[in-house]
């Protein structure tokens, strides 16, 4: 990783615990003492079992949650010190899936990405519409613009949601298991879109995922979380090994370089005793 730009998106010993409900369970930190240095334009994967703190870390990086200790900085500025709307002009989030309560069109969904750039009662203008169209075009969904979002297939929906995040014109795109609810074909479709966007647009990507092969194929660097702590962090080819998979998931796996795909592949063998 280029060290010169590794001061881009940085987590400094970040910790967070969800506020407990009155008198119930003790406070269990969701993330504790995590430090990351994400290079500009890079693609970083967050790996770890369910409940390891991946989503919490993404919310901290989006500025939605404020760290209890430590700080997340983007080009040296702490996200927690920025107003939410300012943070949202730099960082956009793509959730695993989206279930609107109303029948918005794809274009309406994408235009909502302009929200952080508009004053609260300001209506979007021609410039915003142009950006929305570019975003639809970049994700290959321009022909779906007037279709109701709920009438789209899973892959189309996720591409529209990614277009909506692009319309935010972010520097950083945070993806929370963006392919988890898609079938294999749509997974590949969305993955190749993300790869292309990270290459062609100057967008830094951080993706939480359970799909180790997807992570191996897309990510320059991997961060591995378990119980809210960082177990390993480094370039993909160094970080992804049988040993780290065992540590992470208690699973024996075969990790090998796959010639045809050009990246590491992970084949789970058995649950480690």
């Amino acid at each position, binding site marked *: 990783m280029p060290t010169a730009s590794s001061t881009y998106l940085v987590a400094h010993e970040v910790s967070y615990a969800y506020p407990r409900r009155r008198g119930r369970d003790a406070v269990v930190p969701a993330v504790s003492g995590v430090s990351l240095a994400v290079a500009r334009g890079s693609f970083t994967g967050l790996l770890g079992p369910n409940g390891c703190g991946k989503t919490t870390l993404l919310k901290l990086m989006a500025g939605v949650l404020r760290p209890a200790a430590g700080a997340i900085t983007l080009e040296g500025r702490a996200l927690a010190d920025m107003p939410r709307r300012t943070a949202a002009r730099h960082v*956009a989030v793509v959730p695993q899936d989206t279930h609107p309560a109303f029948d918005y069109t794809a274009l309406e969904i994408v235009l909502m990405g302009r*929200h952080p750039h508009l004053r609260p009662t300001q209506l979007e203008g021609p410039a915003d519409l142009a950006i929305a169209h570019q975003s639809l075009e970049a994700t290959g969904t321009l022909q779906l613009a007037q279709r109701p979002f709920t009438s789209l297939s899973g892959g189309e929906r996720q591409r529209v949601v990614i277009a909506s995040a692009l319309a935010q014109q972010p520097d950083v795109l945070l993806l929370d298991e963006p392919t988890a609810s898609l079938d294999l074909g749509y997974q590949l479709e969305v993955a190749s879109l993300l790869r292309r966007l990270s290459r062609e647009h100057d967008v830094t990507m951080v993706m939480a995922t359970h799909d180790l092969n997807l992570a191996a194929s897309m990510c320059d660097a991997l961060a591995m979380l378990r119980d809210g702590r960082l177990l390993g962090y480094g370039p993909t080819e160094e970080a992804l090994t049988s040993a780290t998979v065992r540590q992470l998931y208690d699973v024996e796996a075969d990790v090998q370089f796959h010639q045809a795909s050009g990246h590491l592949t992970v084949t789970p063998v058995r649950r480690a005793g």
Partner: protein
Amino acid sequence: MIADGTAHTALRAPQAAARPIRARLALTVAGFGVLTIAACLLAPLVGSTPISLRRALDTAIPFASNVDAQILFIARLPRVLAGALVGAALASAGVVFQALLRNPLATPFTLGVSAGASLGAMLVIILGGTIAVGPWSPVPAASLAGAGLAAAIVYALANGPRRVMSTTVLLLAGVTLNAFFSALIVFVQYLADFAEVARAARWLMGDLDVGGFDPIVAALPLVVAAGLIFARLPAALNLMGVDPDSASARGVDVASTQRWAFFSASLATSAAVALAGPIGFIGIVVPHLVRLLVGVDHRIVLPASALFGATFLVLCDLLARTLMAPVEIPVGVVTAIIGGPFFLWLLVREG
């Protein structure tokens, strides 16, 4: 779809060139506004007794002996204006509650505000009460107090220890409170004599014959205040309607938007119910009809529903006054007869 003619060409797919929001909003408000004005101007002229507009407006005839003017200004105009105000308040409150609960089948009465208002009104009607509060006479004053109590209970339950409201708890608390207050209403009625029960039942049917301009003037500031809050909400409601977490990631203060939405929609509902009783179905039928016509963007649906709600209730009341003239049908019965089947059709369609 019509291309908007602005310079950002390179639009290869013509169907993607939607009319910009500004034009859609202006067109929609103008269209529904004309309907509302037309309804409010024409409705007072129609009724069981034919009147002559020229005679009613003839200043040469003293008001005391001008029957046409008396019918127009004392009997009909307050009623039409009350219908417009209540219709606008209930329809827009319906839109806001539906967005807040992320549930298109919610109504202004889902969260128990109207049941609280009804209980308050019942207690005064049946136990008797003479405390007027400011411009409010005893029954509407008690109804406002009951609505406020119901809203406070639901709010306290749903707000809980976490900052963001749980819309699930909000719904469950509202539905439960509705049932609880309804039981209390039945109990209060059981203890009352027949004349009181008849009066109470009549109030529960909803009635726009508010008896002059004073009650309208009393309710107006509350509805206007709610409307001013509504005006700041629609963009945030749009984003929360997609996904509350995404909205939060885009700079929407979800917790604050929820609080303002709950407070303002409860306020509008309380004022409407205090003025005219719990007139049902406006808050669900109107927003859905409007969405069928103009799409689901809350920045358009909210003002359009307010205007169409006013039109719809004025016309329903016109039917209530004239269908079986000289007998009047309670307007709540008319809205229910039109709204009930429509609501069922919606359920089947969306289910």
